[in-house]
């Protein structure tokens, strides 16, 4: 079982990295792109037999407390 956590900068927070990548894409001729946001992707392997709901609760807590900073980032947790 795997958990995936996708962390993105909050919309209100300036994302100079996303802006720079957007500009570079434009220079390379990729058109029609109105915004780029650069975030993080964290993949976590869970031990076989892990209780899905317990894992979700624990990882929600870890995502809020440690893996993301709620002042500047949002996260999405997926467990497959």
């Amino acid at each position: 079982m795997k958990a995936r956590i996708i962390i993105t900068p909050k919309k209100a927070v300036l994302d100079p990295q996303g802006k720079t990548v957007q500009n570079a894409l434009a220079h390379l001729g990729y058109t029609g792109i109105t915004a780029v946001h650069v975030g993080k992707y964290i993949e976590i392997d869970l031990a076989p037999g892990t209780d899905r709901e317990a894992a979700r609760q624990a990882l929600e807590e870890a995502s809020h407390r440690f893996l993301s900073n709620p002042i500047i980032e949002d996260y999405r947790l997926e467990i497959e």
Partner: protein
Amino acid sequence: MHFAVLQFPASNCDQDAVHALRLLGHQAGFVWHKDTSLGGADAVIVPGGFSYGDYLRTGAIARFSPVMQAVRRFAEAGGLVLGICNGFQILCEAGLLPGVLVRNRALQFRCEHVFLKTARQDSPFTRAVPAGQLLRIPVAHGEGCFYADEATLARLEARGQILWQYCTADGALTEQASPNGSLRNIAGVCNERGNVAGLMPHPERACEAILGSEDGRLIFQSMIAWHEQAARAGAGAAPHA
């Protein structure tokens, strides 16, 4: 006065901080991040560097070090804690200071001397700074852009928690004067109680004339003056860790 200077894996301004504090005639010793005690220190310096390789976010891993539990208790008891550069980032991640430091707006690592305006003179970290005197102190960081939401910024202003702001040589708070795009030109803040502060510039690198500036001394001398005053005021006013 005895300063505890914390050491995390990849701290790299710890030696400079100890050197500067001893130069000022005070005791300073290292405290390893796995220690659970601050060894009876009168004040704590969380130094600069790249703790844990800046992995995940700057300061995000160091904040969970065992020594940070001792720092939290020390701060809650009213002890003086100063975070410099990565130390500032760690204190923000730990929630001991408001806001967060993010990537410099221009995405460049900035390493240069800047001018700082001291926003208030009566804090434990600024009381030795003569009114109106600008501080010339170096910065060296890639992630020093102070960010907090508007409500938090307004609260910081209203409560006098902004201690230092980037300014021009004339003291003007212009956008160009800021090396990193910090909101409100913020270079350093303190907590609501006023006993925990952080700043991105490096006062420990500006304590000797040979280094081009001695203005950094004023920040450490402020802490020393506060401690001496608290010690005179009686036991309990100056906590030991």
